[in-house]
């Protein structure tokens, strides 16, 4: 068991931005919420999955909706508590802990708020190992864990509970209720026991985010090859260095999609990388050929400072280093690739693990 205090929280939020692969929402508001709760209620205990008993019930918590709205209409705080308690009440069994469903971006830190407020522990694992845009895109789905009972709460005190036949249906209904709730809702879902999570969840991702954050923070201070240091910390591969040229953006079905064209520099001079994104960075093609795709992670970093660059922050002239990080093994199964592989996002290519091309 470890303790998440304010210092750990700062590093965690920083590292979560790298795992956010360009999306997942700015952790700033989530971090402030968690920090305030730690100040008011004390630090949070972080357990590994192995430290829990088989029957211990874990209910993940998260924010759903538009991060742009969250910076304006911040949560009440009771909303996330309501969602969390509603799931426990529905199941009728005591809930031991909460966890993050998405270690990349804002939702890495949102459960810390709940954990501090209710004095429940958090578990060091998540359901993505990165950020993804839809609810069903979690390793829980691969392992047959249902999002039912699903609870979503607003600041007014409304809670919508759902029973659905599939996690994809939960996504469909929840997306429209979110709009009714003001484009933002706090959610609790994917209740599971520790025994189930040892199979289904990706372990250690909260600690991983914290470690990455530490590296980024140190690199900021020392300016000593930050990109290489981050690459080492995440166990990734440098696939490209270049200068961003054209960035095309379009909105389709509520998602911000687009492509950035990046001209190679240094060792990559003469090559051209096409980076495709839909809220997150999803695929990289070099000279027309797919090199890295989802579910592997693409981190786009400022070549000098190592700062992660979001899909919204891609701009002409930025010099970037692109690091590909192997995704969790669970995503590489046929069920995993069906959920989040290149085909689901409309890319006509087979998935090839990044280390087969760059290892």
């Amino acid at each position, binding site marked *: 068991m470890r303790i998440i205090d304010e210092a750990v929280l700062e590093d965690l939020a920083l590292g979560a931005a790298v795992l956010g692969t360009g999306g997942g929402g700015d952790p700033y508001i989530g971090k402030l919420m968690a920090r305030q709760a730690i100040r008011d209620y004390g630090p949070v205990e972080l357990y590994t999955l192995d430290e829990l008993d088989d029957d211990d019930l874990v209910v993940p918590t998260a924010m759903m909706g538009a991060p*742009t709205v969250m910076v304006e209409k911040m949560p009440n705080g009771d909303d996330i508590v309501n969602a969390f308690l509603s799931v426990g009440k529905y199941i009728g069994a005591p809930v031991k802990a909460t966890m993050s469903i998405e270690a990349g971006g804002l939702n890495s830190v949102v459960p810390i708020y709940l954990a501090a407020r209710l004095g429940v522990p958090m578990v060091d694992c998540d359901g993505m190992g990165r950020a993804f845009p839809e609810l069903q895109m979690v390793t829980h789905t691969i392992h047959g864990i249902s999002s039912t009972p699903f609870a979503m709460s607003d600041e007014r005190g409304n809670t919508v509970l759902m029973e659905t036949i599939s996690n994809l249906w939960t996504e469909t209904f929840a997306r429209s209720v979110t709009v009714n709730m003001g484009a933002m809702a706090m959610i609790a879902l994917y209740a599971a026991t520790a025994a189930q999570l040892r199979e289904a969840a990706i372990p250690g991702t909260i600690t991983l985010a914290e470690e990455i954050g530490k590296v980024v923070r140190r690199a900021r201070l020392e300016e000593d090859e930050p990109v290489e240091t981050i690459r080492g910390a995440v166990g990734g591969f440098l696939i490209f260095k270049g200068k961003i040229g054209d960035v095309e953006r379009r909105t389709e079905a509520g998602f911000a999609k687009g492509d950035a064209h990046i001209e190679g520099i240094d060792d990559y001079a003469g090559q051209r990388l096409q980076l495709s994104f839909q809220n997150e960075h999803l695929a990289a093609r070099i000279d027309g050929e797919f090199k890295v795709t989802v579910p592997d992670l693409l981190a786009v970093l400022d070549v000098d400072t190592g700062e992660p660059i979001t899909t919204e922050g891609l701009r002409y002239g930025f010099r970037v280093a692109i690091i590909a990080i192997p995704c969790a093994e669970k995503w590489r199964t046929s069920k995993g690739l069906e959920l989040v592989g290149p085909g689901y996002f409309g890319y006509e290519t087979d998935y090839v693990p990044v280390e087969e091309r760059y290892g």
Partner: protein
Amino acid sequence: MRIGIDVGGTNTDAVLMDGARVVSSAKTPTTANVSEGIAKAMRKVIADSGIDSAAIDGVMIGTTHFTNAVVERKRLTPTACIRLGLPATVCLPPMVDWPQDLRDLVGGESHLAHGGHEFDGREISAYQPDEVRDIAVRIRDAGLDAIAISSVFSPVNASFEEQTAEIVREAIPDANITLSSEIGRIGLLERENAAIMNSCLRGLAARTVDGFKAALDELQIRAPFYISQNDGTLMNADFAKEYPVLTFASGPTNSMRGAAFLSGLRDAIVVDVGGTTTDIGVLQHGFPRPAALAVDIGGVRTNFRMPDTYSIGLGGGSLIQSEPLKVGPQSVGYELTSKALVFGGDVLTATDMIVAGGSEVIGDVGAVSGLDADLVAATQARIMEMIAIAVDRMKTSATPVPVIVVGGGSILVTGEIEGASEIIKPEHFPVANAIGAAIAQVGGECDRIFSLAEMNRDDALNQAKAEASERAVNAGAAPESIEIVDVEEVPLAYLPGNATRIMVKAIGDLAGAPPSVSSMNGGN
């Protein structure tokens, strides 16, 4: 004729302009009582030009005085905050992200009440006048009269903030009230922070602006005077007393606007080479391109639109290392004139390399005659490469653009810059800030989320443009001179229904002022 003044931390600069012509300029030390330095600088430019002070039509002042008050934690008035948005936002009350010392000074008194709006204009909860009345009485009883009012999504609908101000005035007739919707954009904490800072600066603003007025009276200048804002536009003296926070970061903006004016270009890259750093900014339609990121002022996060500048560690005082060749980022800084070789020192700096290369004659040229010619050439090439990369980073497309080089270290630019269509080194740069103030216009903004499912895009854009123009007119612009200078659309991620945030900026000439100096200058 206009006088432009820039009050910096070190120097107070003034310039007297006749239309597009710089008649005279002056540089004097900034004084503890800001008005004294201003009076001195104005006296000098008037004396040098030999004109009658009656010929002056307007005085434009850019000042860092209010930013410094926040940074130095001085002369701030205790302020209460009322936020409308219950039951939302409870987990992060006002001033939650402020440094403790500043919060203690400003008082940290805050109240949450019902109200606020959703992104699409629905009410979060019904507004409760009695609740606000009770809060107003409590604030009065606490002896406070400076109040900031914020409401969730007030950039979409400000009515609750306005109603609250009326109710507060019933309890506290002389209340000094700032509405967040009048100041900031979307981002509740940042906008609210700015509103609180504005209220806590109003006391200082009234004294300072009155001091400016006294300085003008002393010189028998009867013309109206204006203060520059962070976006390069002007506000009149009464407006400045109301919104001192809008002066934040007007310095770099005025400098870039001055560069635009001096070069006659509206779209260009500005490279400002100083002693230690080089700052690169982008002019779009004659205004600095704003930064997308949040900006900290004295440790408090705000969302003002600051100029988007990129800094590299290169300047006239940059240290040079050979084997391997390295230029900066360490610098002798303000000690250049004693430490560089050409000034009799023993440190090899970028300035020495330029002098050794023969393009400039500064100080003791003999002191650098023995430098290795290859190293000199390699250093100059490296400097140009550093500038070229930084310039390229700030460009928005591969098309070559003109580059305006300004600043004391501009001698470092010795050749071509890759990606630059031309390089311009204008005259009068030392007072570009003051010139930027002198030529400023007035503007207005609109920043709202529109649902394009309910309204077509053209209607939404037109509505945003109309709102921005109306605000420019309210700020003093002549309606016939209004021009839309910036339109930005950002679709909201993870949200169906085509909700799009639209930001529009309009500017125009001061009503009753002589025709726009920038249009007299012919634009581009």
